[in-house]
C-alpha cells in the first residue's frame, strides 16, 4: 500500500532498520528493551502505590491532555498561522516571524502564569506561597512583549525599505 508521506511521517516501516549498521541495531534493541522495561516498571509502581479507584482519573487526565493539545491548542496555532501567513504577503517575512515569535513566547508564558493567577485567587492558606503581585507582573510582561516586538519590527521594516530603494 502506498503511503501519503509528509515530512513528519516516519513510521516503523518507512524508517526500517535495513540501513542501520550493527552498532546502531544493537543500540536500537537495547533502547527498545529498556524502554519497555521502564514502562512495565512504571505501570507496576503506579498500581502498587496508587489506589485502584484513582487510576481512571490518571488515564482521564492523560487522555484529556492529548485532546486538549491536539484538538484545541494545535488548531488554534494553525489558524493563527494562517492569518499571519495571509497578512505575510503585505509585510516583510522577517517581521511576520518576529510577530509570530512574540505571540508564541507570550502564549507559552501565559500557559504557566494563568494557572498561577487562578491558584492565587483561590488562596493557598500560606502567605509565603504565591506572594507576588502576579497580575501586575503579567500585564507588564505583555506590555514589554508588545514594545519589544514593535521596536524590532519597526527596525526590520525600516531596514527593508532602505534596501528596496
Amino acid at each position, binding site marked *: *500500500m*502506498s*503511503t*501519503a*508521506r*509528509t*515530512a*513528519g*511521517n*516516519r*513510521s*516503523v*516501516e518507512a*524508517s*526500517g532498520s535495513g*540501513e*542501520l549498521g550493527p552498532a*546502531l541495531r544493537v*543500540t*536500537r534493541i*537495547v533502547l527498545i528493551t529498556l*524502554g*519497555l522495561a*521502564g*514502562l512495565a516498571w*512504571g505501570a507496576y*509502581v*503506579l498500581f502498587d502505590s*496508587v489506589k485502584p479507584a*484513582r*487510576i481512571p*482519573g*490518571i488515564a482521564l*487526565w*492523560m*487522555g484529556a491532555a*492529548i485532546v486538549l*493539545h491536539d484538538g484545541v491548542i494545535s488548531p488554534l496555532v494553525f489558524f493563527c498561522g*494562517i492569518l499571519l501567513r*495571509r497578512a*505575510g*504577503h503585505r509585510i516583510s*517575512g*522577517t517581521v511576520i*516571524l518576529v510577530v*509570530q*515569535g512574540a505571540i*508564541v*513566547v507570550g502564549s*507559552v*508564558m501565559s500557559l*504557566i502564569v494563568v494557572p*498561577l493567577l487562578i491558584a492565587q485567587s483561590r488562596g493557598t492558606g*500560606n502567605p*509565603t*506561597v*504565591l506572594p507576588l503581585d502576579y497580575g501586575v*507582573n503579567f500585564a507588564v510582561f505583555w506590555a514589554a512583549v508588545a514594545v519589544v516586538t514593535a521596536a524590532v519590527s519597526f527596525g526590520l521594516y525600516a531596514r527593508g525599505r532602505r*534596501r*528596496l530603494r
Partner: protein
Amino acid sequence: MVQWNMRQVMYEAQRALASPVRNPRMATVIGRLLGLAFVLCFGTGLYSHFLQEPLPGMHFATRPELLYQFTQGTHIIAGIACFPLLLAKLFIVFPDLFQQPPVKSFLNFLERASIALFVGASLVQITIGLLNTYQWYPWPFPFRETHFALGWVLIGSLALHIGIKLPIIARVWRKEADDGSGDDDHLTDAVARDRTATPEAVRLFGSSRPTGVTGRLLAWIDATPDLRADATAERAPSGLDTGSASASRDDTADAEDAARTAHTRLSRRGFLTTVGVSVGTVVVLTTGQTVAPLDAVNAFAPRKKGVGQQGVPVNRTSKQADVAADALAAGWVLTVAHAGVERSFSRSELLAMPQTEVDLPIACVEGWSQLARWRGVRLSDLADLVSADAAASFRLTSLEKKGAYRQTTMGSEYVRDQLTLVALELNGETLDLEHGYPARMIAPGRPGVLQTKWLSRIEAMDV
C-alpha cells in the same frame, strides 16, 4: 468511497500543515533538547525520591551543602523548560497525527499507542508538576505517587521512542556530520517535496498541488498577486533581479528557487529563535526562587526569596500542621532516646548546651530555596549523650498529628555531620513558630520536608 474521502481529508490535513520547520532534522534538534530536559528531570527526581525513601543500605553525600538546592532547582527549571520544548516538538510532528491509513500494521499500531502514552504522560507530568509548585491540586489522584510512577512511564517511553526513531536520528546526525552545518541542510521536507509531485499526490489529485477545501484555503492564503513581486524580492538574497520584465523563464524559476530556499531558512531560524527565546523567558522569569542572582527578575515564581517569617518562606504552616498548642505549651521537652535510655531537654536546657552556628539553605521539593543562618545544638552531641552508635540512623518525630512527614528517618551520614543541628534560632532570632519553634532539624543537602519542624522525639534506631 467513504474511505477514499477520509483518506483525502487526512492527506489534505497533512498538506495544509506542511511547513519548513516540520521536518525530521528539526524533530531531532528539538527532540535532543527535550530528551535532555526529561533525563535531567528524571535523574534529579529519582535522587529526591531516594532521599525521602532510601533503599536499604543507601547513603548520600552531605557535601556540597547546596547539593539538594542544586538538584531540585534543576528539576524544576528543566521541568519549566519542558513547556516550550514539548510544545515545539509536538508542533513539529503534528502532521503525523493524520497518518493515512491510521494504522498500517500491528507494529505501527504499537508505535502510535506508545507515542500517545508518551505525549499524554509528558503533558500530565509537567502540568501537575507545575501546579504542585503552586500548591494547587485540582486532580483526583495523589500527586507524589503519580508523579513518580509517570516519571518511569515517561523515561521508558523516551527510550522506546528513541529506539524506534533511531534510523531517522542516525540519518540526521550523519547528514550533519557530512556537511558540518546544521541550518543549511537539505533534508527532504514538506516545502521541498511540494514542488515535485509525489506518486501518491498524482494518483489522488493528478498533481502535487492540494485541491478541494485545503487547496482553496491555501490559494486564498497565498493569493496576493500584485504584492508577490515585492515579497519575493524582499525574501530573495540581495542581488537577484527578480523584478525585471525581460527575465527569461529560467531566471524566474531560479529566483523562485532562491526565494524559497531563503524563506525556508528564515522560517527555520525564526522557529529555533522562538523556541530559544521562549525557553529563556519562562526560565529567567521563574528561576529567581532558586538562583539568587535572578531574584531581581523573579516575576512568576511561586516563591520569593526573603518573603516569609524571619526572611524564609514556609512550606507547611503551623495552622496546616495543627501544632500551635503543643509547640507553645510550657511543658515542651525534646526527648532523645536510645536502647531504653531516654533523656528529655527543655528549650532552656538545650540553649544551655554548646551552640553551633551554620549557614545552610532550606531547599524545598517544590524547587525554591533560601539560605539562612541557624543556631542550635549539634545532633551528634545529643546522640553522644545517649551513647548512640556512630552508624545508627535516627527516627525523628514531629508534634504534627498527621502528615506524611510527621515521622521520618535520618541516615547516620547526616546525624554525624558537624553541620547538622537541632536548631533553636534562625537568622539571629528565636525560631519562629512557622519555622518549627521550639526546635527543628537542619541538615546539609536534605529536602525541606525532611528538615523536621516542631521536634518532639529523636530516637536512635538499631544498627
